[in-house]
């Protein structure tokens, strides 16, 4: 399935056109088309085996597409060997050369550039400075920490000033604290160098914070391409909606349209509710109604909202900044709701306690109707 995407009118920097890759009878990547603009951070997001790494390896030249073409800066990359591509990769394992020092690792690709030794040394120094590893230049990879190794890998991939930098799970090997810090560092280095980044990740949070645009992949197919906000707020399928963030979904049936809204029959919520209109759905069609936990309002009194239902608190978990409620509806359905703990206090902060009756409501704009 080829999806149209939100590129601008000008010729895109990277164009992937109907690319497929089969290993025997297994289709790892199936007819993927997408474009990436110059200077963008683009994320390929998906679970393991979704084809994101295979797509990345085709961009690097390690795999040839079975079908389709890849254009980089107007040049067809078919048959171009990895060593001839202006594309560099930061490997998930970093793949630093264990027998070379940090400086030698960073300077490795520069051997193939027409540069004097002084120019080469200057570039290595510049790169060491960029990733703040100047004092570690003489160390071997096994003598530095994991976070430092990650930065050496980044500097090595950037040293030859590639047109495209491919990052394979760049933060997966780092611990949580370091990961957050490194995310911002990656973004700032991307801004300073202006190199186009393609990041492969299975971590939706990483994709959301790093990327300008995300392609969500599943079973070799791109399911949706868009900015993090578009993907989160306007998912186009149940797969995307449930892959990004948590969501509660119900079976529903379209009952008609009322003004700008869609009226859907949701048995689990005990009646009709109003939702954001989606083009293409018709009356009587079976759809899915999905609501994100943080879009649900919890109140003691019946709210004004057109979408309101009374339930009982079945379970609650306190996370500090917010609490997660699991609410049982009269229909037997369970709904998850996040409530921010704005007020400070012991018990007073909670909207409701175990077994309390509570009203759930949500804005029609927050109710997502998914046909797929």
């Amino acid at each position: 399935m080829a999806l149209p995407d939100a590129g601008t009118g000008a010729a895109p920097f990277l164009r992937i056109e109907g690319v497929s890759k089969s290993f025997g009878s297994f289709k790892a990547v199936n007819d993927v088309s997408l474009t990436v603009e110059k200077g963008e951070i683009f994320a390929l997001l998906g679970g393991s085996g979704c084809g994101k790494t295979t797509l990345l390896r085709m961009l690097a030249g390690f795999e040839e597409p079975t079908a389709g073409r890849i254009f980089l800066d107007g040049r067809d990359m078919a048959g171009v060997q990895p060593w001839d591509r202006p594309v560099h990769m930061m490997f998930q394992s970093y793949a630093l050369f264990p027998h070379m020092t940090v400086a030698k690792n960073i300077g490795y690709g520069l051997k193939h550039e027409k540069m004097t030794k002084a120019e080469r040394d200057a570039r290595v120094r510049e790169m060491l400075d960029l990733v703040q590893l100047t004092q570690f230049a003489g160390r071997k990879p096994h003598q530095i920490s994991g976070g430092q190794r990650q930065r050496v890998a980044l500097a090595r991939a950037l040293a030859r000033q590639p047109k495209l930098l491919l990052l394979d799970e760049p933060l997966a090997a780092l611990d949580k604290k370091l990961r957050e810090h490194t995310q911002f560092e990656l973004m700032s280095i991307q801004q300073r160098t202006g190199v186009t980044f393609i990041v492969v990740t299975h971590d939706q949070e990483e994709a959301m914070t790093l990327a300008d645009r995300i392609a969500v992949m599943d079973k070799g197919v791109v399911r949706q391409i868009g900015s993090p906000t578009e993907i989160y707020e306007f998912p186009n399928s149940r797969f995307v909606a449930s892959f990004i963030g948590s969501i509660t979904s119900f079976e529903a049936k379209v009952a008609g349209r009322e003004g700008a809204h869609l009226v859907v029959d949701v048995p689990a919520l005990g009646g009709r509710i109003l939702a954001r209109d989606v083009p293409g759905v018709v009356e009587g069609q079976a759809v899915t109604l999905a609501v994100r936990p943080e879009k649900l309002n919890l109140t003691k009194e019946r709210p004004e909202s057109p979408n309101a239902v009374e339930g009982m608190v079945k379970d609650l978990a306190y996370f500090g900044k917010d609490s997660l409620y699991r609410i049982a509806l009269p229909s037997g359905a369970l709904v998850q709701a996040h409530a921010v703990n704005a007020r400070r206090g012991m018990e007073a902060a909670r909207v409701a306690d175990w077994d309390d009756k509570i009203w759930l409501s949500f804005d029609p704009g927050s109710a997502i109707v998914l046909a797929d």
Partner: protein
Amino acid sequence: MAEPSTLRDATAPVEPRQGGAFARWLDRRGWSDILIGGPYIWLLLLFLVPFLIVVAMSVATKTSTAPPISWGGEVPLLNWEPYQRVLSDGLYLRAFLTSVMNAGIAMILCLFIGYPMALGLVRVAPSWRNILLMLVILPFWTSFLLRVYAWMGLMGRNSWFNGMLTDAWNFLVPIDWAVRSIPMMNSNFAVVLVMVYTYLPFMILPLYASLERLDTTLDEAAMDLGSRPARVFWDVTLPQSVPGIIAGGMLVFIPAAGELVIPSLVGNASSPMIGRLISDEFSMARDWPMASAIAVMLLLLMVVPTMLYSHYQAKAGGSK
């Protein structure tokens, strides 16, 4: 009162086993000591003690008694004469040189033949790998002597193999250079050929072990950074396989330098290798001190480079 027995602290150490000091020692750390100590005792009894006996024999004096050596009494306690002869007599120095040359050439040839084979074993599909590894080891299933005799048959003047090579030679060279057969037997060429054949697996196996551990994403990283495959081999694969090259080199060089059977059977009797000299001095001349002195010198020749290597390894600080 019998109270204390029921109030015993649960965190107190377990009661030592009934029995003597030996049982307690066995419980505490005996098994690990025995396991670690085993190889040391083995080395002590079967290497160090015999070696010291050889050293002692090398400074004894040759007599006509049985055994034909003695220390002290009518002869000097320490007799350095065998060493002086080893270092001054051209025969022994030439034998050392021949041994080192033959073993060195065999080692280098084994490296050049074995490296591509080991690399092939690593790169081949895993389903083939075990079969090919098996084929490398397969010659060991046949008696070593039988294989040397087979080579003697092949290299001999009347063999079909020699005949084939002779025909090829006569076909290629001008008529004046034509020969009736190629003189392969009883030469250093024959010694090196058979040693390469015999010791090749000892080169391939450590090389395979060191190449097999290498991370192939490093090759991809080097390619990604602009290196063609030949360059990747030179920059990434080769430097990382140096420990394997050194291990394989030592496994070939050390036994080849002291080799007795191969040079005796196919070698040139007028330029003997050192193993042959030791054997002759010991069993034919019955000069045990001389044989021991040569053996000690040979060992020194082998041990010094090995120690230099481990010193260098230790200095590299476990960086592989």
